[in-house]
């Protein structure tokens, strides 16, 4: 019951879902429709786990008055406040910009600017990382440096001022050698996914069972 049944659920589901792709019969399509309808519902409940863990960690911090415990309120209040606000103004979810509400305001004017700024902050750190990574210590590092410099200069106006060849070479690098490397990686990842999928479906890979209840 603890291990065999979940493994069988995976195996039956996996095989059925694989076969339905090759057998487009009405029965297989009905089974497929049930599975794909049910999966988002089941996955939605997984969010409860995440929210539960987050709540447990931060309420524990507040109770123990751990270091920086005050900030835990900044996590817990919006965590539960946002669903309440969405419930009060459900039209702001479907209406978006046309239905301004506090829910919409918090998303557009707190969440969006903070996330965009956090990503843009990486521009500073990526520059220092580039300095460390791009020191032309070897021939391979020099190739890496040259490719990055040409691609970067090719995308800004100064690149075009330096010469038409620069954006064209940048584009050529992106379209051919870059594509070759990406394609090889994609193929490797693809074979990896296929092998892992088969291992999970046939119960060879069981790490997903975790240690819950042994």
């Amino acid at each position, binding site marked *: 019951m603890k291990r065999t049944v979940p493994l069988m659920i995976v195996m039956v589901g996996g095989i059925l879902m694989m076969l339905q792709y090759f057998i487009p019969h009405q029965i297989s399509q009905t089974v497929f429709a049930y599975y794909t309808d049910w999966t988002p519902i089941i996955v*939605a*409940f997984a969010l409860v786990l995440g929210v539960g863990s987050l709540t447990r960690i931060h309420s524990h911090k507040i109770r123990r008055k751990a270091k920086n415990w005050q900030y835990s309120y900044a*996590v817990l209040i919006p965590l539960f406040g946002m669903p309440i606000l969405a419930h009060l103004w459900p039209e702001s979810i479907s209406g978006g910009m046309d239905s301004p509400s506090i829910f919409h*305001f918090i998303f557009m004017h707190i969440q969006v600017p903070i996330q965009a700024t956090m990503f843009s902050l990486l521009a500073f750190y990526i520059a220092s990382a580039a300095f460390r990574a791009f020191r032309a210590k070897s021939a391979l590092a020099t*190739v890496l440096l040259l490719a990055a410099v040409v691609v970067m200069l090719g995308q800004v106006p100064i690149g075009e001022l330096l010469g038409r060849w620069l954006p064209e070479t940048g584009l050529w690098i992106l379209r051919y050698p870059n594509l070759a490397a990406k*394609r090889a990686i994609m193929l490797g990842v693809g074979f990896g996914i296929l092998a892992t999928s088969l291992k999970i*479906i046939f119960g060879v890979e069981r790490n997903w069972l975790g240690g819950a209840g042994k």
Partner: protein
Amino acid sequence: MYDIIGIWVGAFFTLAIYSFLYKENPIYRLAEHLVVGISAGYGMAITYQITVKPRLIDPLLSGDHWILLIPGILGLLYITRFIPRISWLSRYPIGFYMGTAMGVGFPLTMKANVLRQLEGAMVPLYQSGMAWYEVTGNIVMILGTLAALIYFFFSKPHKGLFFGTGSKIGIWVIMVGFGATFGFTVMGRISLLIGRIQYLLGDWLHLIE
């Protein structure tokens, strides 16, 4: 009024995040914690409104979709994870999801990551009317893909003409690819930075158009 207050609040949090460039401080920490809470709360609200309510609660309340009790109960079993004695029950919904995801994903991965990539690599080396840089590019692309694949093939030692030379060429191709990807990522981050500066100097301070 709504927009003006919004821009001021947005500018405050933009500066709060940038203050980290000087050093970590309470304003940054507040913004950092807020974004965690808001995104999780937003995710919860959206998931309920878009998935749980229309796909489960509304059909169940309408009274003629009792079969949906199965995914509902399976979903609820996730919560047993918090009760150590019966936490193994959470494996059932995980198993259902894993089976579906692996089964549905298998043919799709085969198509997108393998067959389409192989198809994309099968291009003519030369056709009339092709520019020289396209011909060179196609040769580089085909041989480069093969060489990079050889580099990732660890079942044979990288020695000899085929595996040895192939893997050596492969690492060069991969380095060019990594360099190009890095340059592309840097430019993406810089354009985000420009966007935030435009927001501060344009939308907030009206110093630029």
